[in-house]
């Protein structure tokens, strides 16, 4: 029997390490005939910790939410083939949500041991590379990527072949290939998951890319906040060298290429190509004007190609199967699949990989299981602090590059944060802007100060001090920042605000004119009251941190609005719906 425990960061946070250790101890102490393996995250983070039991015929039974006190019982049930009726088995509904997906970049995540190169090879890993090195010219490789229609998965969606060709055509040497693993978008974690679950796939993609452009050195620029990803990448690079997939004369096919890791030091702007290069050179990560593009003058002023983790993770598939098979997936201008991080007010959060063009509704309801607590769906925020939101009216939008931008958001790196009726859109706009303000590198005045001014306006609106004309001021500042910024961080910084204003203008107006927050979020604009439902149980008074609630046992309580700090504790603890907020 084989047992596989999902040990991605999310699984570990849910307690999977303890589960793994318990199984290991039991196997060792009882001398059980069981292969115990680690794997990355299968994407269903809401079901972690996940343990997969394979019987002698490789038949899989997947158990979910396995707690340390339950795991040994399950282990013995699995050994005795008694799992059939087990409550911890994954439900049919959750299986269906998995089956609706089409996995390329994450096809191995959660199934293979990321710390063992043989596991990757057993899935025909590195076969694409063999094909490339033994039978294809550099032009052939670029042509195949063009036929596949692969576009950059990091945000802008630039055709990958175009970047590769530009770097290939440059005469200067040495050339570099860089993997951008500085995933900084709050609400996106697919790159982490791929690196933790299937690092060899990214290496293979980079080696193929390196061959195509004529580079001998690859660098992975990875966030320091992803220690597990770094650890697994290091192991993968070491093993790839030992097995002859990296280093001199790869597979005896006359190609030299090696990869090293560089840990980023935490700056969102380093996701921008030229800033990333500055950071690699040991400087402050500040972007510069393009052109020259990195393909012409990049790392140490040499031709450099930068792609994101997920983009590289798609490359091996194209060569293992075929470019035309890849192009069959997806929609007209957006080929293949895309991984989304489905989070926020969603029942079944996690990573989902679907063909481009799948309607948003199917992703949210069929795969994500709908909105938490069955509340009203309000919008999906896509593209993080550079993106915008897709409101409920556009829920049937097919998710591909063109349609998403037509709907007012951007694909970005694939963060999909579901927002329900309880969120205030002015506050959300403020949240995103405060992020970009903090992360602005400070080089361009419009970005550095413009975002600050916009944030101040949003702050005063949420504090009930908004003035007539503030919305127009925000719009004007947004245009100025877009025009006056050098890099995409600044150019796109106002997007969330503009998108919120476009879709939820009435909420902004309610804050400004009526001094009301329709979602009851902005503290300065709400008041708490106790209504006649009050039974005098005193629980609110006992929980109030400022003693603003008075009343006797079994008598109706009152809130002193002068003292109330609007923390909402009374509202949360009341069992009789006696506390109302307006």
């Amino acid at each position, binding site marked *: 029997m084989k047992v596989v425990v999902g040990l991605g*960061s*999310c699984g*570990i*946070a*849910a307690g999977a390490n303890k589960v793994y250790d318990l199984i290991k101890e039991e196997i060792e102490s009882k001398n059980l005939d069981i292969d115990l393996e680690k794997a990355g995250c299968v994407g269903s*983070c*809401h079901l*972690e910790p996940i343990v997969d039991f394979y019987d002698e015929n490789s038949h899989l039974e997947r158990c979910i939410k396995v707690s340390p006190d339950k795991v040994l019982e399950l282990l013995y049930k699995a050994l005795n083939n008694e799992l059939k009726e087990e409550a911890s088995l994954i439900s049919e509904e959750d299986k269906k949500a998995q089956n609706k997906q089409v996995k390329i970049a994450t096809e191995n995540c959660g199934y293979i041991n990321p710390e063992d190169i043989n596991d990757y090879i057993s899935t025909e890993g590195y076969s694409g590379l063999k094909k490339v090195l033994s039978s294809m010219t550099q032009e052939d490789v670029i042509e195949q990527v063009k036929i596949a229609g692969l576009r950059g998965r990091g945000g802008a969606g630039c055709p990958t072949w175009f970047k590769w060709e530009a770097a290939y055509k440059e005469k200067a040497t040495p050339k570099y290939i860089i993997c951008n693993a500085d*995933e*900084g*978008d*709050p*609400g*996106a*974690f697919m790159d*982490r998951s791929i690196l933790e679950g299937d690092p060899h796939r990214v290496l293979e993609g980079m080696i193929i890319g390196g061959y195509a452009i004529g580079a001998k050195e690859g660098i992975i620029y990875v966030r*320091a*906040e*992803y*220690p597990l990803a770094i650890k697994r990448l290091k192991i993968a690079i070491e093993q790839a060298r030992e097995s002859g997939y990296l280093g001199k004369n790869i597979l005896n096919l006359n190609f030299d290429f090696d990869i090293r890791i*560089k*840990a*980023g*030091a*935490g*700056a*969102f702007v380093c996701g921008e190509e030229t800033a990333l290069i500055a*950071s*690699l*050179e*040991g*400087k*402050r*990560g500040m972007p510069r004007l393009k052109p020259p593009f990195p393909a012409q003058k990049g790392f*140490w002023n040499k031709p450099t190609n930068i792609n994101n983790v997920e983009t590289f993770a798609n490359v091996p598939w194209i060569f293992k199967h075929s470019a035309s098979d890849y192009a069959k997936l997806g929609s007209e201008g957006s080929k293949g699949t895309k991984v989304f*991080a*489905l*989070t*926020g*007010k969603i029942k079944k*959060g*996690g990573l989902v990989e679907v063909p481009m063009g799948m309607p948003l509704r199917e992703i949210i309801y069929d795969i994500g299981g709908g909105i938490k607590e069955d509340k009203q769906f309000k919008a999906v*925020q896509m593209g*993080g602090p550079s993106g915008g939101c897709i409101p409920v009216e556009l829920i049937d939008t097919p998710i591909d590059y063109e349609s998403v931008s037509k709907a007012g958001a951007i694909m970005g790196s694939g*963060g999909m*944060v579901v*927002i329900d009726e309880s*969120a205030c859109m002015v506050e*959300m706009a403020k*949240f*995103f802007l405060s*992020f970009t303000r903090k*992360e602005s*590198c400070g080089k361009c005045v419009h970005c550095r100060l413009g975002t600050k001014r916009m944030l101040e306006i949003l702050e005063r609106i949420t504090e009930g001090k908004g003035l007539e004309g503030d919305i127009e001021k925000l719009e004007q500042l947004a245009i100025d920042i877009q025009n006056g910024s050098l890099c995409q961080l600044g150019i796109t910084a106002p997007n969330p605000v503009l998108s919120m204003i476009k879709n939820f203008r009435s909420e902004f107006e309610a804050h400004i004119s009526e001094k009301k927050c329709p979602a009851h979020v902005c503290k300065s604009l709400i008041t708490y009251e106790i209504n006649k439902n009050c039974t005098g149980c005193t629980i609110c008074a006992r929980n109030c*941190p400022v003693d603003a609630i008075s009343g006797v046992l079994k008598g109706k309580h009152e809130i002193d609005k002068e003292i109330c700090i609007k*923390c909402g504790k009374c509202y949360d603890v009341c069992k009789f719906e006696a506390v109302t907020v307006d």
Partner: protein
Amino acid sequence: MECCGGKKIKSRFIDEDVDLSLLDNILSEYKNVKGSLITILQQAQEIYGYLPLSVLDYVANETKVKSSKVYGVATFYTQFKLNPVGENLIMLCDGTACHVNGADKIQEAIYEELNIHDGETTEDKLFTLNIVACLGCCSLSPVMMINDETYGNLTSKKTKDIIRDKKSKALAKEAK
């Protein structure tokens, strides 16, 4: 740091007496490799837990990079800390997913328990709070990390329990 803002800058940071010779191995490995300033600082921070100004000066001297540049890099990246941090570094996630799932309530709970805001350290030097953009565990939101351990699906109560547990462990260790 002897240029224009030198003195003012110094007053903002605690500079403890540290053993600079601990840096020599790192410096001999990297000082002649171009572009490795960030790597040097990352490894220095691993040694001292933060980057004392004397370390920045020493690195500048040894690598012949201007101290203004070293300081510029050290203040640009969020990973680098110029003041000592507590024994337990709480990284509270305020990424989008955690934000919509109530990270502010967790922040309040931490404040109620430890009386510290973002960037502050408790008087007993046991806890430092840093609010960070995204830890990449969005489906477990709200999330915080204490040192290397991640805690998900937090509630106010759960957060306080975790902190109290850490505190009592630290005090027990001290008593020993």
